[in-house]
C-alpha cells in the first residue's frame, strides 16, 4: 500500500469529516492518499459515505471538517469548475439538447479553445471510445452503452489529470458492464490519468482497481490491492463484503506467534491466524473462504465433521451446503475434477482447512 505513495500524493484527504444535519457524521475522519496515475475504487454498500467522498473531491459538497489536497494544494475553497476534474455520473448526465459532438465540445468551449482544436479533440475523443460516427446524434438516440462511452469521452476530452466516476456502469446489463470494465481499464492504462471510482459492485472493483477502499459506516474499513482484500481481509465486514466466506463464532483461548486457538461455540478448538481478534478471552469469528475448505482428504491442522445438506451443480464446481458445528450455512466449493470427493446429500464427511486460510476476526456488528 505504502509503496505506491512514495512520491507526493496526487489526492490527499486529510482528516475529512462530513455531516449534513449536524447530528450524525456521514464521513468520519477520512484519511486517504492517492498516487498519480492510480486507479482507486471506493467500494461499499449504499449509505457508506463513498459517494459523499467523491462529491467532496469534485467540489459539489463541502467538507465539514478537514482538508482535501489536490497536487498538494488545498481545494476546499476552489469551486468545482476550477478543479479541472473530469467526472462520469451514474446516469451519464449527457446534455439532452446537445448532440454528442456538442456535448464533447462543451468543456473545450468553456475553456475558450479555438474552434479547430475543439474539432480535433472531439474527433479524437470519439475515436478513443469507438464512437466516430455518432457525433451528430442526440444522446436520446443512443443505447445505454453508447451513452456511457460518450460520457467517458466527455470527462476525458479536456485532458484532466483526475477523473471521478460515480457508479458509471450501474445502469448497464451484465455483459455490457463487464465489457466496459475492461475498456475503462484500458483507457486508464493508455492515458495514465488518476481515477477515483465509486461502486457497490465488488467484482467491478476487483477487476479494475489498483487499490480498493472498502467503506462502511463512514469509515474506510480497509484500503488494499484487490488480491490482499480478498485473501487477507482485515475485519469481518471486509471478509463478508468481498467474496463469500464461512463464519464460525468462538472464543480465543490462546494466542501464540500470531496464531490463535479458538474454542468454537459448538465444536472443538481450532487454530486460526490472529488477525483482528483482540486478546485471549475475547469472542471472535473465524472466516474461511469456501474454496479453501478441504473435504475428506484433509491436510490442514483443523478437522471437523460436516453433514451434507444440499448440493448445487454449477459446472466448474459443486457448491455444497453443510452443517458444521451446529450451523447449517457452511458452504464448501468442491472443484469438479476426478481427484475431488464426490458427495451425496445426507452424507457425513470430514472438513478442514489450513491455519493460514482461517482468519480470526472481530465480531462484525450484526454478523451473528
Amino acid at each position, binding site marked *: 500500500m505504502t509503496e505506491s505513495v512514495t512520491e507526493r500524493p496526487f489526492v490527499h484527504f486529510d482528516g475529512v469529516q462530513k455531516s449534513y444535519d449536524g447530528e450524525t457524521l456521514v464521513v468520519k475522519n477520512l484519511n486517504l492518499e492517492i498516487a498519480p496515475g492510480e486507479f482507486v475504487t471506493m467500494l461499499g454498500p449504499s449509505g457508506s459515505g463513498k459517494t459523499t467522498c467523491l462529491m467532496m473531491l469534485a467540489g459539489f459538497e463541502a467538507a465539514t471538517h478537514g482538508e482535501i489536497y489536490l497536487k498538494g494544494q488545498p481545494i476546499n475553497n476552489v469551486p468545482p469548475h476550477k478543479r479541472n476534474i473530469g467526472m462520469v455520473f451514474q446516469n451519464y448526465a449527457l446534455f439532452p439538447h446537445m448532440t454528442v459532438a456538442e456535448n464533447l465540445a462543451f*468543456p473545450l468551449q468553456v475553456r475558450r479553445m479555438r474552434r479547430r482544436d475543439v474539432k480535433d479533440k472531439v474527433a479524437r475523443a470519439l475515436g478513443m471510445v469507438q464512437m466516430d460516427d455518432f457525433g451528430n446524434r442526440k444522446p436520446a438516440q443512443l443505447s445505454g452503452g453508447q451513452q456511457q462511452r460518450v460520457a467517458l469521452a466527455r470527462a476525458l476530452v479536456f485532458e484532466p489529470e483526475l477523473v471521478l466516476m460515480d457508479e458509471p456502469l450501474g445502469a448497464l446489463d451484465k455483459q455490457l458492464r463487464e465489457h466496459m470494465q475492461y475498456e475503462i481499464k484500458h483507457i486508464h492504462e493508455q492515458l495514465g490519468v488518476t481515477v477515483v471510482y465509486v461502486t457497490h459492485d465488488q467484482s467491478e472493483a476487483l477487476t479494475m482497481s489498483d487499490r480498493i477502499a472498502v467503506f462502511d459506516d463512514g469509515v474506510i474499513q480497509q484500503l488494499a490491492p484487490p488480491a490482499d482484500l480478498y485473501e487477507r481481509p482485515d475485519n469481518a465486514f471486509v471478509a463478508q463484503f468481498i467474496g463469500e466466506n464461512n463464519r464460525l463464532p468462538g472464543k480465543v483461548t490462546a494466542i501464540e506467534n500470531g496464531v490463535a486457538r479458538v474454542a468454537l461455540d459448538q465444536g472443538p478448538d481450532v487454530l486460526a491466524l490472529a488477525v483482528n481478534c483482540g486478546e485471549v478471552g475475547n469472542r471472535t469469528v473465524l472466516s474461511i473462504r469456501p474454496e479453501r475448505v478441504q473435504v475428506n482428504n484433509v491436510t490442514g491442522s483443523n478437522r471437523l465433521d460436516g453433514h451434507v445438506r444440499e448440493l448445487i451443480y454449477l459446472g466448474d464446481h459443486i457448491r455444497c451446503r453443510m452443517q458444521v458445528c451446529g450451523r447449517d450455512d457452511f458452504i464448501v466449493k468442491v472443484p469438479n475434477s476426478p481427484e475431488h470427493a464426490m458427495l451425496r446429500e445426507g452424507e457425513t464427511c470430514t472438513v478442514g482447512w489450513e491455519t493460514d486460510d482461517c482468519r480470526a476476526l472481530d465480531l462484525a456488528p450484526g454478523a451473528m
Partner: protein
Amino acid sequence: MTDATATHGPDGLLLASDGTPLKTKLRQSMKASRRRAFGLVLPLLLFVLASFVIPIIMLLWTGVSNDTYASNMPRSAPLLRAWDGASQPTEEMAEAMVLDLIDARKAKTIGKVASRVNREQSGTRSLYTKSARRAAKMEAPFIDALVKADKDWADPETWRATKIAATSLTPAYYAAALDYKYTADGEFVEQSEERQIHVKLFWKTIWVSGAVMLFCLLLGYPVAYLLSHLPAKKANLLMILVLLPFWTSLLVRTTAWIAMLQSQGVLNDIFVWIGITGDEQRFSLIYNLTGTLIAMTHILLPFMILPIYSVMRAIPPSHVRAAKSLGATNWTAFWRVYFPATIPGIGAGGLLVFILSIGYYITPALVGGQDGQLISNFIAYHMQKSLNWSLAAALGGILLAIVLVLYWLYDRIVGIDNMKLG
C-alpha cells in the same frame, strides 16, 4: 419468416392456420378492442362535440350569417338581393316592403328587423317601426306611400342599407371586425378613422398578452427554481402561496387589488411614506392598463410557474454538476445547460399564459378602466350589451384564428413536442 406453421397464400400474403390472410385475422382480433376503446372515449367525444366543436362551428357560422331580415321579411328580401343597388327602387320592391312591414308588426318581429337594418345605417330603426305602424293603411303606389310616411324612403341609401341587411350570408361582420365596411356594391371600404377600433385592439391584446407572459416568466421562473430546489415540506408551503390566487374567489381577489392599488391604497400610501412620490402625485395603478397588467400577471402567474416547476423537477441535478465539473461557471452552467432544459416548461407556460391572456375578460373589465380593455371585453360587450352577436362571432373567429396562427408559429419555432405541461 420460416415459421413452419405460417403458410403463404397465392398472392404471397401470410395465411393463418385456418386459411384466412393473417392481416384480416389481425384486424378481426383488433376490432373488439378497438370497439371497446371507442366506447370508452365516446361519452367524452360526444361531450366535446356538443360543448366545444359544434358551438365553435356555430360561432364561425354566426360570424358570416345573419338571416334576421331574410327570415322575417320574406317578400322583400329576395327582391332586394336581386336589385343592383344603383337604379331607382321599383314599385314591386316597395309593395313587398309594405306587406312585409305589416306582417312583421303583427308578428312582433319588426323590432328585430329594425335593429338589424339600423346597424347598417343609423336612424333606420325609427324609420322601420314608424313605417310599420302606418303600413296597414298604405295604398298603391306604395313607393309614394312610403315616402309620404317618411321622406327617408326616397333616399337610395336607405334601400342600399336594407339590401345589405337582406343578404343573409355576408362578409360584412368580418369586415367590420377588421375595421372595414362592406358596401352594397360588394366593396370593402376602410372605416372612417374615428370609428376604427378593432385592429388597434387586436394589436393591443396581443401586446398586453405578450407583456403579461413576459412578466409571468420574469417573476415565475425564479420562484419555480426555488420551488424545485427546496425540500418537499417547504416547497409545499411555497406552492400553497403560489396557488393561493387560484383558490381565492374573484371578488375577494379584486377587492384586494383595489385596496392595494387605488390611489389612496396601501401601495400608494407606502410610496408616499417612503417619499417615492408626493401626496398629490400618487400613481394610477388601477383602472388603467397598469392595473390590467398587474392583475393579469398576478392571476396567471401559477399557469407559468407550474409547468416550469414540473420541468425543473425532472432535470437531474447531475446535469448542472456535470457542466460545472467540465469547467463551466455557474452562469454558463445555468445558461447553456439548465436553461435549455427548462425551455419546454417555458414554452408550455408561455403559450398557456398567452392564450389565456388573449381571451381574458373579467379582470380587465374590473380593473382595466378605459385603456385596459382588451378585445375580449368588446366581444362580451357585443354579446351582452349591443346584442350584435354576428360581430361578436366575427371578432371571436378572428381571435380563434390568431390563437391558431400563434400555435402554428410556436410549433414551427419551438416544436410542439417540446412542450411539457407537467
